[in-house]
């Protein structure tokens, strides 16, 4: 029987936090692909992608690493257990670096990040640029942003939001209220819960099953994670620190109906990273890895293929 090797690892971080990571594939695979999930999600958000990648893993083309970000899923809070005031996306970038040092200490690596996971990769690139080009050989940035997520104050509502909550994410302000509300009153299985989630996060072609799965994953996230990372997202700004990403092939994907990180954020990224390939996907919302798993997989396997070819050439 052909099998896929899999193991669970609790990656220890310097501050005592533990990251819950799932590693599939052989240790001697030519490339390691590490996927970082978004805000209030968990590694389960990559399940559809992982399923499609399975034949590639089984064929020995790559090793797949999924992990729960700090404070999400099974991963712990570490030094932020009591106080989240200093929590930033930079911390998540540092965590990703530790994860790589631990589960992929050698060999080429491709990184994929969705939403906050994409910002995580940008933070790693800003903090440890030497990794890019050397260890990191490709990056997929899915439905994400380099910054400027704060409201612009163009409408009356936006100006109001700016006054009330400076430096926070426009869409998330609405989302916060809504998510809190439905968490109290409605389980993910309820119609209204799913409608709210669908309207906020999904495009026109998303199936009910996708929406339910996504709603359940988010429902499993603590209110604490929701609240703690909310200001951190607003403060995220790496627009001037993306140079390390110019060293590697980059795939940028975004849905045209994305309300959390609208298309313009990905276009800005593409401007900053002239070599990047940008795909704006029609009728698709913020949950692109779920809604268009096959497109995400195509982009990721392209990067893996390039990284493997690099290695063969080297």
């Amino acid at each position: 029987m052909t099998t896929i090797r899999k193991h669970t690892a609790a990656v220890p971080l310097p501050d005592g936090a533990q990251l819950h990571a799932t590693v599939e594939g052989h240790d001697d695979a030519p490339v390691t692909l590490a996927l970082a999930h978004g805000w209030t999600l968990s590694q389960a958000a990559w399940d559809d992608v992982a399923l499609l990648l399975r034949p590639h893993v089984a064929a020995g083309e790559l090793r797949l690493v999924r992990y729960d970000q700090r404070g999400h899923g099974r991963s712990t809070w570490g030094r932020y257990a009591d106080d989240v005031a200093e929590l930033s996306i930079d911390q998540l970038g540092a965590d990703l670096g530790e994860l790589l040092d631990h589960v992929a200490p050698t060999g080429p690596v491709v990184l994929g990040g969705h939403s906050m996971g994409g910002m995580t990769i940008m933070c790693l690139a800003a903090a440890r640029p030497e990794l890019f080009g050397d260890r990191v050989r490709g990056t997929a940035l899915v439905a994400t942003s380099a910054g400027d997520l704060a409201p612009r104050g163009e409408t009356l509502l936006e100006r109001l939001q700016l006054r009330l909550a400076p430096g926070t994410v426009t869409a998330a302000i609405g989302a916060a209220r809504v998510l809190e509300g439905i968490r109290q009153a409605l389980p993910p299985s309820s119609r209204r819960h799913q409608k709210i989630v669908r309207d906020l996060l999904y495009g026109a072609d998303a199936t009910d099953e996708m929406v339910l799965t996504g709603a359940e994953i988010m429902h499993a996230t603590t209110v604490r994670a929701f609240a703690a990372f909310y200001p951190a997202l607003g403060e995220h700004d790496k627009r001037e620190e993306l140079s390390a990403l110019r060293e590697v092939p980059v795939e940028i994907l975004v849905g045209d109906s994305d309300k959390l990180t609208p298309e313009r954020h990905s276009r800005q990224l593409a401007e900053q990273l002239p070599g990047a390939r940008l795909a704006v996907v029609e009728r698709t919302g913020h949950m692109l890895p779920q809604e268009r798993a096959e497109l995400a997989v195509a982009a990721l396997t392209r990067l893996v293929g390039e990284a493997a070819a690099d290695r063969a050439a080297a």
Partner: protein
Amino acid sequence: MTSTLETQLAPPPGAVREVKIAIIGSGFAGIGMAVALRERGEQDFVLLERAADVGGTWRDNTYPGAACDVQSNLYSFSFAPNPEWPRSYSGQPEIQAYLRGVADRFDVRRHCVFGADVLDARWDDAARRWQVRTTAGTFRAQVLVSAAGALADPTYPDIPGLDGFEGTVMHSARWDHDHDLTGEAVAVIGTGASAIQVVPAIQPVVGSLAVYQRTPAWVVPRTDRPVPRWRQRLYRAVPGLQKAIRGLLYLVREFLVLGMAKNRLFLRPVGKLARAHLHRQVRDPKLRKGLTPDYTIGCKRILISNDYFPAVAAPNAELVTAGIAEVRARSIVDRDGIERPTGTIVLATGFHVTDLPIAEKICGRDGRSLAQVWDDGMVTNRGSTVAGFPNLFLLVGPNVGVGHTSMVYMIESQVAYVDSALQAMAAEGLETLETTPAAQQAYRELIARKSKGTVWLAGGCASWYLDRHGHNTTLWPDFTFRFRRLTRTLDRENYVGAPARTSEVAA
């Protein structure tokens, strides 16, 4: 280790030692029987113990986290209350220390033959004696009491490739404390009462933990607390208080019988409690689904734990529900084709309960073993005696098990019954006593009638309570005080006895 006493007890090589009563085992049942005999001045008996110490199940199950699911105030002998219990639910070391203490206090050790593993026990009908061959010599006894227990012999699962595994394999009941699990990839197979205790105990030290689950268990919160010093002092000063608490605990637990054996509606609140416990402790929807049973609570043993779910949901843990396809030299492959590198396999796979190994060793009048006689299912009178096996008494025999309350209560009930039988024999001058097939049949029907409609048969699960024919041959399917009433004194009408052949033997 053998003491001088034991050397005196064991027969010299080749010789046969005559005793009036031979008891197999020195756990709760063996010690309880021994104390009862001594209390009325009976000294001519031995306890045949295969290990080097008393304690039985509580001596053998030393795995990390081993503890009792019943409060110690209830899970202890009525004649030996212990004001010193450190916690409301005690761990294995405390219970084992308690058993050793009771054995010392009632001078049971002087009757113990350690290292005496019973090879076989045959009824010699001509001599009217049990011939018991052990690894410490042969004994001839008028009466044989099997106190071998139901959780004595570990079962090893039949998994392809397990023999070829190159890492460490250990059963939870045979824990190897010299083997360090720190940083290892550990697989725990099974999710029963042992697994649920060992998993949270080892999860913090192992590198990664894969829990292989066939059927999830219903788990309710464990209300375990340290017993404060003032309360221990109070128990010492006012023994009646501890007795009253014991009674209260007994009563509360007996209410579960209403739901399990009488009307399953009464189990609903327990089911709700278990569901809420799972929801509170596990957020991950997939994991929660994997841990949610699809059968009525109570059908399998209800487990109690506050740290099992958090351990399975820990960053280094994984619940595997796909089933095991095979074990390879350094890994386990599940039915989804996922291969997990594994350093140590912990088998938390339970015990031979419906196929008691001791039953293969005890042979009755016609030479057939209990196992052979029980091929169609275990039958007894009152869980204690079997037609065709004169002067044999079983403690913790068929249909004496309980999942909801203290096994010690059942053991003490049976001990009283056996003692009543022995006293009746003495009073009537009987050399043998044997139950009738009719009594056995009637008892079997009683059990079947009581079991009908209970959650164990109708709850939609397969459990170790049922034998391979689907009959309940392990659990007492009613209130336990009814069992006590049934076994208070010998039901003499269900027995035939043979008087001693020479008048002087009758004394």
